């Protein structure tokens, strides 16, 4: 066996394909340029402007326009308890929503991976919440679903002694999370389903012969196999849900009080109600930096899933 290990030597250095000429390089870059310019104009320019405003004192309702204040906006943001509580709320809501959606997603994917009559229809139905835009979903939930008098949920719970619960007032935090879970479970289901279908059938058969029952097979083999898919789903879900605005704005308007004020809603309030452009810009810059940190993890994860064989 040792002989076999040693026969494969790495390809000699210097055998790399010759580099393309300068002209060829530009021929490759040129078609990409319009997209690149567009992306820079719509993302990087606004970011630079935001960065510039974050060092300015600029209130829409005060005369005199913007003037330089250094890092005082940042100081203010870091000492502002409502920024910190919005940040914590964003993180906890996102974490709860993503984790619960993932658990449900795994369960649904395991069910959908089995063959049964009408599987195609069920799969499509399960995916639908993800196809609805967040604003529409929020309206469906705040109206027909959770309305204290006419809501579907109260009607369903009435036989169990629940009467006229104003969910969006008494359980605002939970209600917003439920809508997020409802929308993101299908996404998790899809990713996990793809992972399940990538699992070799003979490995599962080998486990059967080896005496593993369904639970042991899931715990010992399927779950480790799904790990990169679960990580990917959680990261993508987190990126989207940490910036969720529609649900908060349309269902609870950040309330009652500040009980559902998330980071995006906090920024929105700072601009539209406090007219504090400089402060909002500083909070925005901090949010972007935090998001970039998360996103770079997500990108690495992407690379790992798609080159999973090589990465291990």
């Amino acid at each position, binding site marked *: 066996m040792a002989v076999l290990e040693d026969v494969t030597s790495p390809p000699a250095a210097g055998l790399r394909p010759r580099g393309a000429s300068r002209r060829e390089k530009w021929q490759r870059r040129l078609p990409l340029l319009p997209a690149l310019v567009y992306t820079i104009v719509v993302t990087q320019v606004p970011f630079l402007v935001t960065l510039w405003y974050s060092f300015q004192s600029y209130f829409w309702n005060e005369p005199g326009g913007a003037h330089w204040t250094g890092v005082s906006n940042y100081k203010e943001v870091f000492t502002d308890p409502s920024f910190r509580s919005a940040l914590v709320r964003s993180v906890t809501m996102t974490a709860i929503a993503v984790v619960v959606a993932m658990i449900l997603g795994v369960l649904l994917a395991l069910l959908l991976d089995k063959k049964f009559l009408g599987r195609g229809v069920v799969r499509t139905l399960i995916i639908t919440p993800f196809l609805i835009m967040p604003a529409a979903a929020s309206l469906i939930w705040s109206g027909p679903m959770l309305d204290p008098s006419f809501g579907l949920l109260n009607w369903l719970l009435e036989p169990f002694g629940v009467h006229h619960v104003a969910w969006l007032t008494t359980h605002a935090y939970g209600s917003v999370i439920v809508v997020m879970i409802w929308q993101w479970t299908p996404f998790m289901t899809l990713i996990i389903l793809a992972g399940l279908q990538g699992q070799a059938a003979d490995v599962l058969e*080998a486990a059967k012969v080896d005496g593993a029952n369904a639970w042991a097979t899931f715990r010992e083999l399927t779950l480790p196999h799904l790990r990169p898919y679960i990580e990917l789903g959680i990261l993508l879900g987190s990126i989207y849900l940490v910036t969720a605005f529609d649900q908060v704005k349309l269902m609870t308007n950040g309330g009652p009080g500040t009980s559902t004020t998330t980071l995006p809603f906090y920024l929105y309030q700072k601009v539209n109600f406090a007219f504090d452009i400089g402060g909002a810009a500083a909070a925005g810059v901090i949010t972007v930096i935090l998001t970039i940190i998360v996103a770079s993890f997500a990108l690495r994860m992407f690379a790992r899933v798609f080159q999973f064989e090589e990465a291990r």
Partner: protein
Amino acid sequence: MAGVKYVGVSRVYAKGAAPAVDALDLEVKDGEFMVLVGPSGSGKTTALRMLAGLEPLDGGRIEIAGRDISDVQPKDRDIAMVFQNYALYPSKTVAENMGFALKMRRVPRDERDRRVREAARILDLDPALLDRKPKQLSGGQRQRVAMGRAIVREPKVFLMDEPLSNLDAKLRVQTRSQIAELQRRLGITTVYVTHDQVEAMTMGHRVAVLSGGKLQQCASPRELYDNPVNQFVAGFIGSPAMNLVSAPLADGGVRLAGTVLPLGAQVRAAAAREKLTELVIGIRPEHLHLHLVGEAAAAGGARADGAELAGEVLLVEELGADALLHVRLVGDAAVADGPAAAEAPVVGGTPVVARAEGRKPPAPGQRVAFRVQPDDVFAFHPQTGARLAG
């Protein structure tokens, strides 16, 4: 340890389709190495998977050690299986792969480690590999791990589904003998599936030849080779394959290559009983004894003493110890032309393969003549393919 018994076992995948396995009766004795061999779609893998419990039975029953296990879960059958692609658990190390079945049986960790190390020793598996993941192993090493996973179990029966098909030719030959030796040492009943008749012949105590879901013949390799029961087995077993030629019956034998090839009295009687006018004749390549080469052969082909087949060498395959001659036998028409046939190219004759000594084989284009012993000629029914008693 235990024997295995298939009793009228059938498997039908789709309603109305031909059964993948059709009323299979087969008995594997305790400690025996049984090879199931056949071409693709012969039902050999299905038969094995039914024994493993991975495939339900549509008829009949399977017994292990005299106990009907047809409806028993795979895990309760006390079997171990080696899969074609090894089916190693990618997230587990080699040691965890090998010890998985023991873990599922709640064998304590120390005991598990001991048995995994023991199996690794038996298989000459470097202990340093035990902590690696399957992805980091070569094909040959993975094959060993798959074997190790099976022997750690100490099961009643080993099932192997083409375990060598993913190895390169040299390693396959080497591993072939190692598996056969290992089985002999452990003495565990083994059912081994392969499409490679050389593997079947070299490894099995007995070989079951399957075709179209039906058992054709189950016998020792020697018996299969010397006494095939039908045309399929005759053509499938042996490399290069037996020459099978249709030939019309003639007085005392069959007419082939312008001469009459004599047949035994029993064969002739059987042919007469079946009212046949034509037979399928089978001659193994090594039974075509090269007799004459060159001009003499061209003349000899027309000689009247009967037992010589003349032809022209088309191609010579040198194997070292011996050489394979691809020969086109002279047709009746060509012989009728008399001496002129020596120059004219042979057209439309029957192609056959003959095994000749490797040192000085005839060259392509040369005329040759072969002698055949009447005992070495197999005769088959042209429609049913059954061997005519001889």
